[in-house]
């Protein structure tokens, strides 16, 4: 080699050139291999790292009352969260203590989280912080502390509409009431899209939409905010005044079955998360059952009238004020002597009602209660609605038949009772109840002769006249009618000395529009008659409601003989302008 250096050098030179070319060739070969042969695999690996499915958030729909006033609305708030893995373990104390102070957390909270949950990457520090406070925290720029935009639900009516509207949990899922019943519609469906994210998790590019976002729909409820507020106020006052355990009131539109107001006591503030013990949460008007007592008597009478054996003026002897049936003694509060059928209602005579009940075949009496929607679903679809019980007539003895005819031995909800009373005002048609605003009058089955319904209305009007049980139910300027109920409560298998005061009625009687039922549970100031405790609440609610609805007074003014007795169409138009020419077919006779 050293002998022929030039030839050796030439060989070395060529060797190096070939080496260089071989290396270059090898690199290009590898490049081709990577970018052509392994292109799909590597692209897939890349996509697995870059592509993420991102959620397109949607806003929960609003809840509006029938006039478009908000009952539940959504507002943006911020939640503060921390990533413990980003926290410096040595502790950046000044920033942390500042945040702890701002969020009124105990000192050292962040430090503890950094220590104990160091393996996590996401820990909420405080959810639903006011945007201004959140901005201050953000301005501190403390490492590992982040903000997340969230929606928070606000309930402008607060506790007045708490039970009907319900509330959502902190993740905006419906938990109670309408919020729960229509959760799917309200929450909509968040969309999904495929995005490219950089390694810090920021969206760089939208690649494709997987499915679009369906925003939550706004729902217009049948509730009337003003009536709801009045009902809440009146009920609250009555419950306080009589030192009662609880109370409920329901206001319905007798034609459309729309629920205009549902209130309960005790109530809670849905805007506060702490204020939620079970006895406050219960929507008693819909979930609680009670024996309806005397409020059932009109239905007994209606069944008797329907059987044809009695007329409104048929006389029944209720002397001596009590009667013995199968080992039970039925009592009136005093001896009413001979009463006609209207008188039985007016005086609320148990003996009279029992005699009428006994005069019927068990099946007819049972049908007279069952078909009125007592102890069956109201069709409202409200979550947790109770059905109640009405024993089948085949199991009845004489005693059961008697007690049922004046309202014991069955259990109903206040909502069912208000609906059943709507039948009288609706010409014998039983409307399905609804919590959403309805255009026009949906078809309803006939469960009672229009003539009988009308006759019962006349009798209910007598109840509030002097000599009836509920003079206090009267509303100035309007004709109203209703029936009291005072029920001894059944506890541990026996009737005890606590009471339920009831009043259910209709207004205005010239062309009934509202069915209102009020129950006060265990008034404990010594007064417990329905006519004394529940009827005044009815009166207040009806007076205000009729005024809100601009219903003209229908009591003939003694000063002017021309009374503005509103026609039914006129009242309906005042209530809901769209009722004239509604799309619903008139099927008054369909169910006959």
């Amino acid at each position, binding site marked *: *080699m*050293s002998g022929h*250096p*030039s030839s*050796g*050098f030439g060989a*070395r*030179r060529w060797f*190096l*050139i070939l080496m*260089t*070319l071989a*290396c*270059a060739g*090898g*690199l*290009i070969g*590898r*490049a*081709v291999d*990577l*970018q*052509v042969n*392994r*292109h799909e*695999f*590597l*692209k897939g*690996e*890349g996509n697995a*790292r*870059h592509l993420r499915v991102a959620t397109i958030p949607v806003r929960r729909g609003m809840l509006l009352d029938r006039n478009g006033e908000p009952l539940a609305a959504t507002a943006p708030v911020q939640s503060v969260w921390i990533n413990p893995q980003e926290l410096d373990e040595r502790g950046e104390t000044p920033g942390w203590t500042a945040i702890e102070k701002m969020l009124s957390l105990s000192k050292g909270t962040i430090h503890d989280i950094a220590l104990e949950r160091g393996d996590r990457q996401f820990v909420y520090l405080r959810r639903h912080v006011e945007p201004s406070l959140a901005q201050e925290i953000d301005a501190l720029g403390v490492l590992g502390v982040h903000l997340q935009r969230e929606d928070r639900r606000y309930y402008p009516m607060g506790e007045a509409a708490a039970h009907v509207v319900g509330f959502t949990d902190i993740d905006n899922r419906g938990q109670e009431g309408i919020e729960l019943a229509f959760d799917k519609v309200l929450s909509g469906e968040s969309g999904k899209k495929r995005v*490219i994210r*950089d*390694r*810090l998790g920021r969206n*760089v590019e939208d690649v494709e939409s997987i499915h679009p976002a369906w925003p939550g729909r706004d729902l217009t409820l049948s509730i009337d905010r003003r009536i709801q507020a009045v009902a809440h106020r009146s009920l609250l006052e009555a419950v306080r005044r009589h030192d009662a355990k609880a109370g409920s009131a329901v206001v319905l539109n007798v034609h459309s079955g729309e629920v205009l107001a549902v209130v309960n006591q005790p109530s809670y503030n849905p805007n506060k998360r702490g204020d939620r013990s079970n006895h406050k949460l219960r929507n008693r008007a819909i979930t609680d059952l009670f024996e309806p007592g005397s409020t059932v008597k009109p239905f007994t009478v209606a069944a008797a009238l329907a059987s044809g054996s009695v007329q409104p003026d048929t006389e029944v002897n209720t002397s001596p004020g009590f009667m013995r049936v199968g080992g039970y003694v039925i009592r009136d509060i005093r001896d009413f002597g001979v009463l006609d059928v209207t008188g039985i209602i007016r005086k609320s005579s148990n003996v009279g009602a029992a005699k009428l009940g006994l005069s019927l075949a068990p099946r007819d009496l049972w049908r007279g209660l069952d078909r009125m929607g007592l102890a069956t679903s109201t069709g409202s679809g409200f979550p947790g609605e109770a059905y109640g019980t009405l024993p089948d007539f085949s199991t009845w003895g004489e005693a059961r038949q008697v007690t049922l005819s004046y309202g014991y031995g069955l259990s109903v909800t206040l909502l069912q009772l208000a609906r059943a009373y709507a039948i009288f005002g609706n010409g014998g048609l039983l409307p399905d109840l609804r919590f959403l605003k309805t255009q026009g009058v949906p078809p309803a089955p006939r469960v009672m002769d229009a003539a009988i319904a009308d006759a019962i209305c006349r009798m209910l009007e007598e109840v509030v006249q002097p000599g009836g049980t509920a003079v206090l139910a009267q509303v100035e300027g309007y004709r109203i009618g209703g029936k009291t109920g005072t029920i001894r409560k059944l506890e541990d298998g026996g009737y005890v000395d606590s009471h339920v005061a009831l009043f259910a009625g209709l207004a205005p009687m010239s062309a009934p529009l509202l069915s209102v039922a009020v129950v006060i549970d265990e008034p404990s100031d010594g007064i417990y008659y329905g006519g004394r405790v529940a009827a005044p609440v009815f009166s207040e609610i009806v007076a205000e409601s009729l005024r809100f609805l601009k219903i003209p007074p229908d009591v003939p003014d003694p000063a002017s003989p021309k009374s503005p007795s509103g026609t039914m169409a006129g009242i309906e138009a005042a209530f809901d302008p769209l009722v004239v020419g509604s799309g619903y077919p008139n099927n008054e006779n369909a169910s006959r």
Partner: protein
Amino acid sequence: MIETISTAVGCSPSKRNPQGVAFARSAAAPDPAIPASASIPLEIGNGFKPRSEAFWRHHDPLLWGVVATLTALGLVMVASASTAIAQDHYGDPLALFWRQSIHVLVGLAVMILVACLPLAKISRVSPLLLVVSMILLALVLIPGIGHEVKGSARWIRFGTFGIQPSEFAKVGVLLYFASYLSRRTLEVRSSYFGLFKAFIVILLVCPLLLAEPDYGATAVLVATAFGMLFLAGVPMMRFVIATGFLIAAMGMLALLAPYRVQRIMSFTDPFADPFGSGFQLVQALIAIGRGGFFGVGLGESVQKLFYLPEAHSDFLFSMMAEELGLVSMVVVVVLYTLFMLRSLAIGYRAQRSGLVFGAYAAWGIGLLIGIQAGINIGVNMGLLPTKGLTLPLMSYGGSSFLACAAGVGILARVERERRMLCMRGAS
């Protein structure tokens, strides 16, 4: 000039070496073997010579073309690759681009300056370069002066900017090595001791580099030194033995630290631990694989968005492969190959013209840049273990670019001196 050559000839044992004699003769008279087109200037009829023509008479258009293309492409890719990280660190997506632009401008000045220095002077100061290099390499190891980044003490900082001594040391050491070889070619060729003496320099510098640690620079420097010895005509047998020693030394290192070997070998299957030891390489391979034939488009890289670490420096090649595809990869590999072959050719012509130091310097620089580029590209494509090596002339980094620019300046100087010799011979 003549003096320099005679010195070189005098130092080389030319009397006992026919080739050396031939070189000495060619210095005095034009070599008929040199192609006329490469050396004889074109004469235009009326004697008017444009300025540019005068320039290209002394310079190699291919070399300048390759360097200019690589630098320009590098600058474009740095601009694209650094947007995300610059935005993140400096709030301006072009912050790193402007810095690199300054590096390139300063680099061009250094290139011109170096190209104006006579080779003889460079050869004379090369021992000084070696000493300065070693002092800098030693300084970087002193805590307080050396600045540690990702576990390696590679930086000496002066306020906002810093230098990486190892980048300059590579050039400085190989210039001294070239000067040493040019003076003692015969000694290195003829005796084991001569060969060993040549290695002493390398043996002195390598521990300093390994202490940082900078395995990439060590590997490049050792490989370059071997290449230069190979070209210096060290007998094959001795060369093989020396290579054997090198392999043995590497084996020793491996035995001393088996965990390191395991980590180094993770490049063979990066997907086995894609979030640990294989992380960088997996991201680099993904970037390359996403590119396809023509890439995803300039500026469209996703991997640069914090997935691929060092996208603007060590892994610029992967980033470019993602954005510009296979086409750009082939172009870049071809450009570096051309650069390497061109510097080999420049070295050979210089050797034939008797510019012995120039020849070794040209080979050294060609090998240095070529090998570093080859290793960097191999690392990017998962053929070699991950090292902290930049892509010469292209990657972001001031020290790296300045060192490369100085090297290119020397290459240009070698070619210029050779052409001047030829012209003088021709006229």
